[in-house]
């Protein structure tokens, strides 16, 4: 088995937007920093007018490598 310096994880992040909107973002990255910037990029891509992200937090990471690693995201009706 080869020695790994970095491992890739599936990250779960939570974003609070200015208007109080909550987003859960899932990204693949091999460091916490990259997870944050990937999440920001994804949020940016997701919205037309750039949203103001009030708070962005990383709440969970799961190592990839096994089929089916994932998250369940609870959503609510608007």
């Amino acid at each position, binding site marked *: 088995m080869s020695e790994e310096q970095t491992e890739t994880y599936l990250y779960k992040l939570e974003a609070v937007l200015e208007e109080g909107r909550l987003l859960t973002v899932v990204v693949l990255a091999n460091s916490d920093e990259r997870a*944050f910037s990937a999440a920001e990029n994804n949020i940016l891509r997701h919205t037309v007018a750039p949203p103001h992200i009030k708070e962005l937090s990383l709440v969970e*990471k799961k*190592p990839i490598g096994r089929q089916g690693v994932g998250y369940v995201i609870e959503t609510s009706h608007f």
Partner: protein
Amino acid sequence: MAERKQWKWADDPSLNKMELTKLEKDGLDVIETIVNTYSKEGFQSIESSDMDRFKWAGVYQQRPKDGHFMMRVRIPGGLLNSEQARVLAKIAEDYGRDLVDVTTRQAVQFHWLTVESLADIFDRLAAVGLSSFEACGDCPRTIMGNPLAGIDPHEVLDTRPLVAELEKFFLLNREFSNLPRKYKMSISANIHNAAHAQINDLAFTPAKKTIAGEEVIGFHVWVGGGLSAKPYLAKKLDVFCRPEEVVKVAEGVTTLFRDYGYRQKRTHARLKFLVADWGAEKFKEELVKLVGELEPQGEDLLQGWNGGYFYGIHEQKQKGLYYAGLSVPVGRMDASELVELARLADEYGDGTIGTCNTQNVLIRNIPKDKIAAFQAEPLIVNRFKLQPNTFVGYAVSCTGTEYCNLAIVETKERMRALALYLDETVELDTPLRIHMIGCPNSCGQRQIGDIGLQGALVKTPSGMVEAFDIHVGGTLEEPQFNRKLNARITVDKLGPFLAQLITLYKADRLEGEPYWRYVERVGLERIQEQVDSILQTA
């Protein structure tokens, strides 16, 4: 290699990948491979499928994944003799950078081990009747128990022989080395639920029943508890179990888990999912089919919950003899401290050291005339205190980023520092249990803390900052997990924030009211208001 068994689920096409790995080669077979191959040929020689199986040997890769392992040693029922303690200390010194952790399930954990050292460590453990085997993996883990068994004024019978029988029956038993998932047992006859029954897969708690005119002391049986991201409280079966039936019932429950537990998805495999689907009634019916008729429930002898804490000097069941409950802040000590603890156990007690699920230790059988000298020992005065300060004494923490690959934040040192800060800042004369964890897996049992702190990373203009979500009101007294507040507190503010929250509780509470009960009485909304007002002024 042992002959491969033809399990009844072997042909199920929907098995998860790990199940296929386990069918290909039993987890226990990795022990032989470690001893004969990997410990000689080194880390590079490890087959990736065997890396998963290392858990059956009780070892697990630590963070960073640079070839070091953590090892968990089983301490059945939390009882260890001084000779064993010295061997553990020497292993830590020789191979584990001097570090010994007492865990939330009464085990002892090492870090920094290399694969080359494992064969020697297995031998050293075996020489004193200890083992790391099946301390991790999909198998019966360390059996939790009452570290006061045999001397406890609050126990209705001595569970030591039962722990020994269970350990003997399950350890390295290939009938049960391939379970759908990890499997945690606890047995205690302490009436204050010393072994945290409701958060184990299978638990035995004290009970009595009059059968054919004779009063029998035995157990009630709980199944399907567990923490992690989806915590469940165990359900009590309508069963009374005589002491001589404990192994039979444990075998039955474990067989049900093995044969009917779910193997399709690892996230849906713990016994709790089977219990949730079947319900306690059907579970009992199936159990009876396997083990024969069992008496229905008797009188429950559980009264409240001691939290797993035993601080101070207390008289034992045996008049004139005392036990000493000591505080080991967040469960961490170095090898020399463990050696010193072994000396104290020999010199003052009967050589036994108890490990507690609160990450603490105790010493048993101290005669009255030795107590004063014991209390004056430097290790007791300076480090493992009999009466620790409130917050240091009731702080529990998981491993965190220091060694854990799943951790989002640092925990152990942080919890220690936080507890020190709170002890300096807030005066409180009743215990307030704070549990800290670095990710949702909950190794530090966040859900049962009066206050549970769970790590997250927050992005700020100056970079990533560690933070904690706040959960309140957990207890096993009237079993209830703590609940999340709307507050994610960055670590620079965590100490002052908690100090204020606790100060508000102090002002509001009824005489001696523990925090969990206070939360229950005033309600979560009231606590959220407190949080909001603290955050506004922060």
